[in-house]
């Protein structure tokens, strides 16, 4: 059974086609990365999967259940957290989590225990009894995530959980997300950060303007751009011919030479395996390179070539405006 599935879904807001025939599917126990710039349709997909809105056309399933027909059942098995950090500022962290626990109709004792466990796990135990308005941005996100974990959801929707966080806080959240998957949760993670999708997701789907424009694992997506490149810099011009000749059998294509920087670029299939061969070949030819490095195309390059746009253009936070359609 798939963790969730979106089948040929359309959603319109007035004249805008927020989703224009999107299909996705994720296996259980995996992190599914949904990558796209602001306004691509990521939030719209999350809202449909989490029963908050309905598709104008197409079908949406969570754990095999049709979301529009079994909304109530779906709600019992999902958790939702996101960039908007939907927690009550006046309540304390503990009160927020306990409130959610009560609304899931868990027994009182269990609510208390679960809240304490989650607060400890999310490193909020010390601040647990302070009003949320005194929390930092990172703490709010962790609390928001905590609120979505109260019932140990089978499927977790994380809508840009790290947008706007500092790098350290982001790493903390990544660690928690990895743990959750190890415990058996299936996760939909939307992000505008390629690095994040690359780091966490088992498979990545790229969307833009409400359409899927690429899908695969991080490696598959990178391979679409060709393989890796090994680069080394010669210490003198005299080594040029020798160096290029020695790379003939190693490179997947002919090596390149830049006369100004004395840099040799060798396109290869699998950089990390071939790197050693390059070193041995240079050694044999008695060439001592001034520098040597391996370049993999980044997802950034993939994204640029797919959408013609750079990513990581974070918009200012949309906290208090009406919901975006990201």
């Amino acid at each position, binding site marked *: 059974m798939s963790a969730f599935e979106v089948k040929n879904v359309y959603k319109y807001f007035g004249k805008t086609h927020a989703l224009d025939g999107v299909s996705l599917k994720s296996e259980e126990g995996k992190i599914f990365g949904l990558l796209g710039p602001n306004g691509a349709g990521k939030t719209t997909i999350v809202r449909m999967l989490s029963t908050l809105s309905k598709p104008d056309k197409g079908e949406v399933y969570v754990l095999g259940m049709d979301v529009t027909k079994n909304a109530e059942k779906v709600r019992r098995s999902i958790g939702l957290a996101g960039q908007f950090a939907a927690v009550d500022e*006046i309540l304390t962290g503990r009160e927020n989590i306990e409130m959610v626990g009560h*609304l899931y109709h868990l027994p009182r004792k269990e609510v208390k225990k679960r809240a304490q466990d989650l607060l400890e796990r999310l490193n909020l135990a010390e601040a647990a009894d302070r009003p949320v308005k005194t929390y930092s941005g990172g703490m709010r996100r962790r609390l928001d995530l905590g609120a979505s974990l109260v019932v140990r959801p089978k499927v977790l929707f994380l809508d840009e959980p790290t947008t706007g966080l500092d790098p350290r806080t982001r790493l903390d959240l990544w660690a928690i997300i990895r743990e959750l998957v190890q415990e058996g949760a299936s996760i939909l993670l939307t992000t505008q950060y390629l690095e994040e999708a690359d780091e966490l997701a088992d498979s990545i789907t790229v969307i833009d303007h409400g359409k899927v424009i690429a899908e695969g694992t991080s490696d598959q997506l990178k391979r679409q751009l060709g393989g890796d490149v090994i680069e080394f810099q010669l210490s003198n011009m005299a080594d040029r011919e020798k160096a290029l000749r020695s790379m003939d059998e190693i490179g997947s294509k002919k090596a390149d030479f830049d006369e100004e920087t004395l840099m040799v670029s060798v396109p290869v299939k699998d950089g990390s395996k071939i790197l050693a061969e390059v070193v041995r070949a240079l050694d044999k030819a008695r060439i001592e390179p001034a520098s040597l490095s391996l370049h993999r195309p980044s997802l950034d390059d993939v994204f640029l070539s797919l959408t013609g746009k750079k990513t990581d253009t974070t918009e200012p936070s949309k906290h208090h405006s009406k919901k975006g359609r990201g």
Partner: protein
Amino acid sequence: MFEIIAHEITDTLVITKRNLLRYVRLPRLLFFSSIQPIMFLTLFNYVFGGAIGGGGHVPGGKYINFLLPGILTQVMLFGAVNTGIGLADDMGKGIIDRFRSLPMSRAAVMAGRTTADAVRNVVVAIIMFLVGSLYGFRFLNGFWNAVLMVAIMVLFGFAFSWVSAFVGLSSGDPETAQLASFMFIFPFTFASAAFLPTATMPHWLRVFADNQPISLVANTARHLALGVPIARGTIWHLFAYIAGILVVFVPLSIQKYRSKA
């Protein structure tokens, strides 16, 4: 079936508690919602009070006795406006989305808000009685009628809270919710028996003023607090309004909440 009803009630209580905690943690909310009616009470009493005078001009003898039930009616309405503002605010902050993603009652978010605002209205009413008594207000019709008066007023405020809930969920942001609500509240409270007897109004206005719910509440309240006579059937007329408002706006608000895209 039993479980479903039990969840409706417990969910509503959880949300009610959450909303009441706001008033406990932010006492200024309660302070400012009392200061305005106290201002009204003071200004009306000392500005109009002299001109209207006591004796036979107003039922209940002193103007303050006539005025306080009217101001309380307005308090209930202003309190109701808060329902919509609060819901619009929650919506803007994404908390409504969290609630909507939970397997909880679809009515509890509004029911918890309207219930909390009803509790708040009771507190503000007590504050108003205390201030009013400094200005000379006295209940003239016994304790239980006074209690009944507060109960009917709060019920009226509760019904209007559901109108406000619908307005708040429809407007989507607190400022719009507030403007939209006051646009109809001001003309309604002034073209009524809330502050002054309707006897001197032009005929067409008087017909409207005498039969609209705000006058009915104010007159019923005066009847219960002071023992002044009211037109027969006023209370039933009022209950019909309250029931009508609830029958229309409870389902409308729930529908709005469910379908919020």
